[in-house]
């Protein structure tokens, strides 16, 4: 039995010469929270717009609830879309916004039923008492909720969210994160959430889909993606890895930090050595490490993040190396700016990419 709610098969979309989506295939189950991570221009918004039906793909098919919807009009797809700028109807009240799809969509619904369902949604997103307000008389966070309620009122099986938290301030963003998850779980619908923020993608998705230049380059649980990025690009987008160029040859990786044994390596088009920020250790220059990686670097500055401290080092030629110290592991060491230190790490914890792959 086909358990997927939604399926993409080789979807390709071009704008002139630019390939916005390249042969994207994906299967999404019912009751799932999927986050799409990618830099701007990676095609993630295009992907959502193609799924919603605002753009037609050049090639490939889109299936929704077992039906081919590639040529179905946007308003007949039954897929909800939440816009980054919320796109509320500025001349209507909160109630009229939420009830818009129920009133004007197909099939037409009785006014009392519209009101009941709209009120139910307004209650769900915690906006009771604001029904009669104009949408320019409420705060950004409340507008976000109206946008969500308006989409959810249609009871879609699939909701597409285009950077839904992008327009909110940091405080509100973290609160809306948990609320989005809670609302989704209560309704049991599938969310596809596009974001440029790796923290948001990892925190919210049951699965994370990483996109780069129109291609899906990794799909997996947040843990899988975080711990074993499929390519140097994924490691780069996660913003948690120091990346070093070098050469992988016969189980040894040679880079600016010396030659280190690399017993296992992931296949990639170029040789890259990745070390997570919190795996880096800082030693005084005098403490010559007997073997293993050793990288001379100049301390630049540190940044206090509350639960941890980020230390920035310059490893020469402007190569920035970041080191994260979790404060739960004890008080941080104080480094002198413009002083040289020796950076090292346990080679077993590094991830190696290369053409001479072992796996």
């Amino acid at each position, binding site marked *: 039995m086909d358990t997927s709610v939604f399926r993409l098969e080789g979807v390709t979309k071009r704008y002139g010469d630019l390939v916005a989506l390249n042969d994207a295939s994906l299967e999404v189950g019912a009751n799932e929270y999927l986050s799409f991570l990618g830099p701007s221009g990676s095609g993630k918004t295009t992907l959502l717009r193609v799924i919603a*039906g605002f753009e037609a793909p050049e090639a490939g098919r889109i299936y929704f609830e077992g039906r081919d919807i590639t040529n179905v009009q946007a*308003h007949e797809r039954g897929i909800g879309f939440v*816009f980054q700028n919320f*796109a*509320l*109807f500025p001349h209507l009240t909160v109630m009229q916004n939420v009830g*818009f*799809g129920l009133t004007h*969509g197909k099939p037409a619904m009785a006014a009392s039923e519209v009101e009941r369902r709209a009120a139910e949604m307004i209650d769900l997103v915690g906006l009771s008492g604001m029904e009669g307000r104009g949408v320019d008389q409420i705060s950004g966070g409340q507008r976000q909720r109206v946008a969500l309620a*308006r989409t959810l009122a249609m009871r879609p099986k699939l909701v597409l969210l285009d950077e839904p938290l992008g327009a909110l301030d940091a405080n509100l963003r973290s609160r809306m994160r948990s609320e989005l998850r809670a609302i989704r779980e209560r309704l049991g619908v599938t969310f596809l959430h596009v974001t440029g923020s790796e923290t948001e993608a990892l925190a919210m998705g049951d699965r994370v889909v990483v996109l780069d230049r129109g291609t899906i380059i990794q799909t997996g649980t947040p843990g899988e993606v975080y711990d074993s990025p499929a390519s140097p690009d994924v490691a780069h987008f996660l913003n948690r890895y120091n990346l070093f160029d070098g050469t992988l040859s016969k189980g040894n990786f040679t880079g600016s930090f010396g030659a280190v044994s690399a017993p296992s390596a992931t296949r990639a088009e170029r040789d890259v050595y990745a070390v997570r920020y919190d795996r880096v250790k800082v030693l005084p220059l005098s403490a010559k490490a007997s073997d293993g990686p050793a990288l001379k670097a100049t301390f630049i500055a540190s940044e206090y993040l509350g639960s941890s401290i980020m230390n920035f080092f310059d490893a020469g030629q402007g190569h920035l190396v970041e080191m994260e110290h979790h404060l739960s592991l004890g008080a941080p060491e104080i480094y002198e700016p413009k002083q040289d230190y020796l950076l090292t790490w346990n080679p077993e914890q590094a991830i190696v990419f290369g053409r001479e792959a072992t796996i």
Partner: protein
Amino acid sequence: MTDTVTIQDRQSKVTRWLLIPGIVWMSLFLVVPIAMIVYVSFWTQTTFNISSDPTLASWKQFFSSDTYTGSLWTTIRIWLIVLATTFIVGYPTALFVGLFVKSKTLSTVLLVVCVIPFWTSFLIRVLAWRPMLGKEGAINIVLLKIGIIQQPIEVLLFTELSVIIGMTQIYCVFMVGPIAFMLSRIDRNIIEAARDLGAGFGRIFWKIIFPLSLPGVVVGAIFVSVMVLGEFATSGALSGRKVNLLGNIIVTQVGSLKWAMASVVGVVLTIVMGIVIAGLLRIVDLKREL
């Protein structure tokens, strides 16, 4: 504390200075002339003379004469018709220029194209309709040539129809501009959101696009109304003296030095315009749109 007081003091001083030129200008060229017209409308007019003795004679004459009241109704009728035709022709044009044309450059170019007729003088634009609409004019010649009609259509020129055609052409762009501006400000995502919520094009137009463009319609209607209500040249040139608007009456009265009567008509016209503008402004709250 003292600092804020001085800043406020300074600001109010600056405000006063900035207000002066406007106040002087408006008083000299708007308030005083209007007061003067109202005053003169109560003067006593004899055939060859006018004196400032107050009388209601001109007012009584205006409201008791079929010519004058008829002209008031003609003005209102022509105004309503032209308002409707400029809207009917202008709204689809604005919809195309402001909403359907995706490129900003192209929509600017199209708006400039709409304005091109203004490169010639107003009177020439009006008079140019004569060789177009006449019995042996361009339209009749073309229609005869392609065999749609056997006899030239004579109602085209020197009728109320020709005045309406002329005014619609001249004032249409004042309707197109503000509407296209409002339409171009509509966030495309809003329309997509409405589509995503299952609304078809008709619903989206009537529930979203039209209400959001309404301020543009009102501004356009105010432009057209003010200009059409005060019109005299188009009706003078294209109606063959058959259509007499209040503006034409003023021209004739001033021409024969009947200042009191001209003033009465002027006051009536000003009041009509005031009512029309106040009425149009009640449709939308323009302050919210600025």
